[in-house]
């Protein structure tokens, strides 16, 4: 007797049931649906209420104000800006100032953080105590206090522009900041840059070639003198043929301040210093934890292969430690960016200061402006963590 093979039960429905309702099944799905609907209703109520009340009180709403003339000036603008530009321009100026201080702050925080962590793990007693002292001192003092310290106590102790500390009468340091000669592009600028790029690409190719040779045949060839030579000689050659790439505009004291040259304003210096030293203290601990998480045997194995301490760290320990380091390191990068909003205390024109500050109080459109500002910080944070995730993914892949 032939046995009819029984049809396997259809998996589709239970699967759907589990996917939508979890272990609770359809009733779970209904509960979730109600929950989401309630959330949507609350959101709708908030928006509708706010809109109705804004209208009733005749508070202007909408984003039309963005094209109005701003009518105020900003002390640091990376793109050209004057008081007759509109609020969109103000927004961009503030955003770029925020990004500038964040990127530079993150760079220095990372460098200082790694150095302090390595110092703290160093067998040298004095070095490790100094690094430990740095971490304990810096991370336990409030950030705002540190920003004000760098701004008021350190930078304000500098002389006024007339008595500024000058180097060769071209660099001037005063309580108005650091004034340096400003490079102005000449006809030879483009050939110079192109030559420099070619030299750098060639140097990288040389280095990769030497690596391949090392792995394939074990031959060690010194390439750095050639690479350095390339990077110096090629651009020099370009300047010989096409003329000087830049000329420098030397700052001169005129009236109250220096005119000409470029200036790094003290607000920027104070904020960057405070943010990077503060965040570095946290990064140092994260890096230290990461390094300690790598088994001691790895270090000993590296040493027994005859590698020096630096090479062991660079080739064996840190790549493994990075897996532990990266997620909390991303947190610190996000914190630094968000902490940069303390800028308003010392008059650094970041996004919150010029846009959520001056623009808000001039236009009174709090909801729109705070909304945009929150959106911007959200995007910056998401992009930062996306970049870090990508980096982590690459490391994970290269380690197999």
């Amino acid at each position, binding site marked *: 007797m032939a046995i009819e093979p029984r049809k396997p039960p259809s998996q589709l429905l239970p699967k759907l049931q589990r996917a939508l309702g979890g272990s609770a099944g359809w009733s779970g799905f209904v509960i979730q649906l109600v929950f989401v609907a309630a959330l949507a209703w609350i959101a709708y109520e908030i928006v509708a209420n706010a809109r109705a009340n804004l209208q009733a009180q005749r508070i202007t709403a909408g984003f039309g104000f963005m094209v109005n003339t701003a009518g105020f000036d900003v002390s640091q603008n990376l793109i050209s800006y004057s008081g007759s530009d509109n609020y969109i321009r103000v927004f961009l100026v503030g955003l770029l100032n925020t990004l500038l201080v964040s990127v530079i702050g993150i760079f220095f925080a990372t460098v200082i953080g790694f150095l302090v962590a390595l110092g703290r793990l160093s067998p040298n007693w004095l070095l490790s105590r100094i690094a430990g002292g740095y971490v304990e001192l810096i991370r336990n003092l409030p950030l705002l206090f540190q920003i004000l310290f760098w701004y008021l106590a350190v930078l304000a102790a500098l002389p006024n522009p007339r008595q500024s500390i000058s180097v060769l009468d071209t660099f001037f340091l005063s309580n108005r900041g650091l004034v340096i000669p400003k490079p102005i592009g000449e006809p030879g600028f483009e050939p110079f840059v192109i030559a420099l790029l070619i030299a750098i690409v060639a140097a990288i190719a040389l280095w990769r070639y030497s690596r391949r040779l090392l792995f394939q045949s074990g031959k060690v060839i010194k390439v750095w003198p050639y690479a350095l030579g390339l990077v110096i000689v090629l651009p020099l050659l370009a300047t010989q043929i096409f003329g000087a790439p830049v000329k420098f505009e030397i700052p001169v004291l005129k009236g109250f301040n220096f005119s000409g040259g470029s200036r790094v304003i003290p607000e920027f210096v104070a904020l960057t210093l405070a943010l990077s030293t503060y965040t570095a203290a946290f990064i140092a601990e994260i890096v230290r934890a990461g390094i300690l998480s790598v088994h001691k045997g790895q270090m000993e194995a590296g040493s027994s292969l005859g590698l020096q301490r630096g090479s062991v760290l660079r080739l064996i320990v840190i790549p493994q430690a990075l897996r532990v380091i990266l997620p909390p390191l991303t947190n610190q990068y996000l914190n630094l960016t968000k902490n940069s909003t303390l800028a308003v*205390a010392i008059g650094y024109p970041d996004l919150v200061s010029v846009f959520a500050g001056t623009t808000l109080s001039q236009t009174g459109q709090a*909801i729109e402006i705070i909304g945009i500002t929150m959106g911007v910080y959200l995007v910056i944070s998401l992009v930062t963590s996306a970049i870090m995730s990508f980096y982590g993914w690459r490391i994970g892949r290269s380690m197999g």
Partner: protein
Amino acid sequence: MKRVSLVLTLAVAAGLSAQAASAQTLKTVKDRGMLSCGVSQGLPGFSSPDDKGNWTGLDVDICRAIAAAVFNDPSKIKFVPLSAKDRFTALQSGEIDVLSRNTTWTLSRDTSLGANFTGVTYYDGQGFMVKKALKVNSALELNSASVCVQQGTTTEQNLADYFKGNNMKYEVIAFGTNDEAVKAYESGRCDVFTTDVSGLYADRLKLANPADHVVLPEVISKEPLGPMVRHGDDQWFDVVKWTLYAMITAEELGITQKNVDEMAKSDKPEMKRVFGTDGNLGEQLGLTKDWVSRIVKSVGNYGESFERNVGAGSKLGIARGINALWSKGGIQYAPPIR
């Protein structure tokens, strides 16, 4: 501060719902038993706390007068210190009932903020303060100077207009609060500090050595300062508006804190209307018949408040100037109480 403005903004977004548009502010204030008054974070002469924590100043007296008119008790006030950039949000969100914080009356503030100015407590103008050592005699000599300013004020825009109009270059550093701007000026970060002239005199007192600093003669703008209330509540608007007018009227009629009980017995028809012995003008405002004597008893008339807080008798020593009564060469003027 940032957190405050964020919270306030969310309050505007969500909390406005609780605040019906035609809010009965007077009733709300009476039910609460307390007036919530937005003031500065410390501007001597206008609103600043003394060493015992009592708020005093011309702007504070407006709030005390309102509290006196409503509760017959000038101490039933919660003072809310606000930075320049947070003040309007605090008013919009209902955090405060009245903003009495040296705020300049402008068209755009009247129209786009959802608030109204009720009158002018002090006619001011923007000026500059510099160190005497710089030997500057006029604001027109300030080309290329660095200027410290408080953010979120009309000052920032006047400054841009003035330097642009006179073809002068300058660098502006804008701080979140007035104190931070003054501190940066004192530390030498800026050559110039700018705000309303009255503010310059007040802030100069805070400097380590006031005599080393000089206020330049130029006044570059009109800054009529006055209290603000939310749109959409005409009764409350009237109460705040007429509180100031009651103080000015009292000065016009020679009613002072000392002689107020004496004057209340007067037979003159005008006095009878003001003191409510004839008619019910105070009740029409939603107050009591004796609202004017309550106000004058607690803070005095406008002239007395001026002299006590900013005038010749105070540390600031500012002359009455255009803030004198219209009958004495100034422009302070109250519509008739009748």
